[in-house]
């Protein structure tokens, strides 16, 4: 069942995904491709881990 706190967590994750990946894109455009890849890896971990935690806790 989708609850208010799940929606709230989801919104935070989406906001963080957009915010951090936009920074990653900016770094990519500046020519630091390793830096951009590192940021994208972080974004992936930060987005996937809470979802896994939520699923496990249910």
């Amino acid at each position, binding site marked *: 069942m989708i609850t208010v706190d799940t929606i709230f967590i989801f919104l935070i994750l989406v906001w963080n995904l957009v915010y951090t990946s936009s920074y990653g894109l900016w770094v990519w455009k500046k020519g*630091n491709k*390793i*830096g951009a890849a590192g940021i994208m890896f972080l974004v992936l*971990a*930060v987005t996937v*881990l*809470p979802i896994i*935690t939520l699923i496990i806790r249910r």
Partner: protein
Amino acid sequence: MAKKTVIDTAHSKIAASNWGIAAVIILLLSNQISMNYTRFAIESAHTAGWLLSIYITLLAAVGFFLISKLGVRFPGKDLMDICEEVGGRVLKTIVGIIILTSLLFIVPVTLRQFAEFMKEISFFVSPLSFVTVFLIAGMVAACYAGLEPIIKVTSVLVPIINIVLFGGLVSILPYFDINRMFPVLGKGAMSIFIGGIPKISVFFELIVLLFLAPYIKLAKNFRKIGFASLSFTGINMILVSITIGCVADYHIAMEEFLSEYVMARQLNIGRFFERGEAVFIPLWVFSALLYMSILFYFIIVIFTRLLNLPYYKPFIFSFAILLLNLSFIPGGLESAIMLDTHYFRNTAGIITFLIPTIILAIAKIRKKGLNKR
């Protein structure tokens, strides 16, 4: 140690006194005392917890002496800069990842333990996630403020914490039974002197000093700060180990999670002073929050240094979410303590003492070779 230095680093310009930096290191190293240290020392050496404390402090001092002696050739450079100079980007990346991983291990584990302790002491009904989010919010705010305010707050807080701690130790003197210190060698000489070597990992947080090196103007001040912090923390550890060892039987002390808190609850002087934990808890919360904030800040800084990124603030929120989730991985308080004391505090010394010593020794040998040519 009062002279102010303003050093421009790659990422930030901060004004920090030598005392401020020493206070940060003292706070980081002392955090263990209020969490698990006494239990850890008594478990490892029984009645000789105080002797183990002396031994590991001396070992850490020798380790730090080697690092400071070899590091003299790199004034104004932190560990990552030295790694880059010695082994290029590859060595910098390897060492950076090792340190980042270790910090990403210990901060969530400490966060979990602290949240569980808080829940046990004050927030009986609140869910664990609420307590954890509350702590994370403090860490995020501290990180947004930056290193300079963190150092300033720490330099004010450290003397207060230590005065309260010392007052607590003195006021518990009537409960002392010196016979509890016997047998002097506790679990045995082998357990203390051979088994005690990995326990040097209690001083893992000294690694932060290697990242604060650019903010210290003179190499001799770096050495002074390191030794002052180590000896101050070592004395605290010894005093607390002796006190807890003399107040409670070692097998009872082994069962206590928060020895200092338990000690504070024992305080009862006449009819006018009791329940010392009322003073202890706010200070303890503040110091633990600062401990986690400082390490959290360095997690982000090391990440940005690894990837050559110009700003650290865009990652504060991402790492906060990451730490929050990682802190929920341990099954409970017991497993978080187990991860901390049994695994981390028996291995992390390699990262703090062995790796920097090897890197600096290689740098020295290389420089000698170049000079000969």
